[in-house]
């Protein structure tokens, strides 16, 4: 299995541990990830607020980089990157006039948007391309006893017209993966909540409140850690957790792992190999207690 890999900006800095764990997991599963040469930021759901034509154009370029590689899919590990690339693709595939204009814009790059690659996320690819049975065979250390809270994040589900992998009102993909890995998924109110990351500057007070609730809810359900398929949700819930704590009298402590880190643990990697020590809220004690014995 080969994919064109679109890492996205956070994987180069704040979420480098997601790059490390994704590469480890892909290699162990025999998935080849070819990083796109010269990819740009997807716009992170901000650039369209200044210029939506530009937002579509830069992602047309990103997709065209993947088309040049002769693979059938571009893969990401970030919800927002996936949404931004898929939004551009949906617009370009539907609107011929827009596609002609965007291709005119790309002329200077020597590239063209053709529309012949799909954009997927690792979570989806594991289910629809790799297969859960095959993933199960690779599990070396079942995560028996580990209670995980699956926090989807908005942009892997919505809008359903653009994302549409599963029912956005009651998705099950994360639970399916957790089950294969041997972990127990807990039910919690904030499973489909918004992390607030995209407005953490202009709406800091409100977003910190969201962060606190998003940590307290899985805690009340007895979760050992929260799992997310998005590095932006991860950053909001982990790195901002000490700031969010200030608004709550109850202890909100909740370790937050990236999905590939959870998979990597079940594949037998150590927390250090998956760079779990990079998280602000230390996840290693709870992992040691439950799965690393």
């Amino acid at each position: 299995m080969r994919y064109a890999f679109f890492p996205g900006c956070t994987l180069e800095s704040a979420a480098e541990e997601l790059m490390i764990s994704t590469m480890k997991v892909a290699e162990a599963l025999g998935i080849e990830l070819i990083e796109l040469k010269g990819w740009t930021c997807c716009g992170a759901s901000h650039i369209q607020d200044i210029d939506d034509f530009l937002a579509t154009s830069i992602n047309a370029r990103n997709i065209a980089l993947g088309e040049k590689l002769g693979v059938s899919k571009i893969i990401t590990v970030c919800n927002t990157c996936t949404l931004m690339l898929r939004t551009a693709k949906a617009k370009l595939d539907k609107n011929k006039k827009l596609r002609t204009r965007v291709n005119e814009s790309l002329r200077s790059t020597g590239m063209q948007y053709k529309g012949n690659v799909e954009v997927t996320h690792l979570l989806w690819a594991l289910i629809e391309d790799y297969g859960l049975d095959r993933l199960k065979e690779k599990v070396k250390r079942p995560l028996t006893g580990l209670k995980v809270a699956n926090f989807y994040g908005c942009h892997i589900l919505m809008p359903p017209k653009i994302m549409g992998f599963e029912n956005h009102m009651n998705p099950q993909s994360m639970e399916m993966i957790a089950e294969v890995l041997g972990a127990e998924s807990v039910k919690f109110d904030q499973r489909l909540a918004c992390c607030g990351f995209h407005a953490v500057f202009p709406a800091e007070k409100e977003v910190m409140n969201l962060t606190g609730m998003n940590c307290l809810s899985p805690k009340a359900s007895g979760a050992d850690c929260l799992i997310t398929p998005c590095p932006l949700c991860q950053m909001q819930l982990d790195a901002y957790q000490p700031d969010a704590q200030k608004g709550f009298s109850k202890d909100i402590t909740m370790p937050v792992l990236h999905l590939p880190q959870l998979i990597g643990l079940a594949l037998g990697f150590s927390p250090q190999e998956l760079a779990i020590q990079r998280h602000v809220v230390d996840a290693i004690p709870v992992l040691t207690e439950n799965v690393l014995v």
Partner: protein
Amino acid sequence: MRTIHYKIKRFDGKREWYQDYQLQYEKGKTILWALTAIREQLDPTLVFTSACRHAICGSCAIKVNGKSFLACKTSLDEVLETFKSDYLVFEPLSNFEVIKDLAIAWEPKMEKMKQVKPWLIPSNKGSVERGFIQSEDDFHEISSPTDCILCGVCTSECNQLAVNDGTYLDPFILNRAYRFSVDSRDCAPEEHIRPVYENELWKCIHCMQCISSCPKGIPLTDEIAYLRQESIKMGEVNNQGAKHAFAFYDDVRNKGRLNETMLPIKTDGLLKTATTKIPFALRMIKKGKINPFHMPKAIEGIKGVKEIYKYAEEVKHS
């Protein structure tokens, strides 16, 4: 016989409780059918609002298992399939004041909506005598936003309203402002957009709930992007939201990728960053998540990216 279990949130003005009802399953029914059957067959005291039964009046929206739906338009079978359960919880819409049971108060929302002048401010191109003629293309600009039936589903699902003090405008109000600001017969778009800007426009979190749940399929998040673009054109660039968006816009043009270290400074300025973000920065540095000395290099093909920007500028001004 299959039984569907309904748990309905009741409220009598003082007291709140959940009440259980059961109905036999019937194929091909709607949520509104269930509400009506419960009231007619089981409990005449249950209060909910409804009228047209055809997704036109917008009065029957409620929450089912935590998600908001227009009851008359929503198939019971689809809901049972979505939640894979025969147990349904009915609650009033969120982010509204509740009057009784499932009935919510609209008056405060209508008062709030007046801020954006949700009416046409006519230009002198038209008059009562001559009429206010609009081309077909111009009509299409407003045809989708005028589909709004004020059902409140977007408000109920809005993640900003869930934590906001009430200043932020409900998505249907933003839609109203959009609808009049793009109307070719309106001569004062700024009068609709300025109040939007002044009421925390940049606090929308981009969660996509409104666009995903609108029973009329109105592209609300695209409208919010438009309102933000227009506020920038009006000169409103000196705020965290616009500065944050420009940080991304400029970084992509200059290097191709985001400079995460500089992002807070570009958004909040050096002084505010230094006074408020120091603990955050220190913990990020400690964990190796920020390297303050790392400056991203320009990507391969940055020249082409700059050309794309130039082209987009020309499109904007053409």
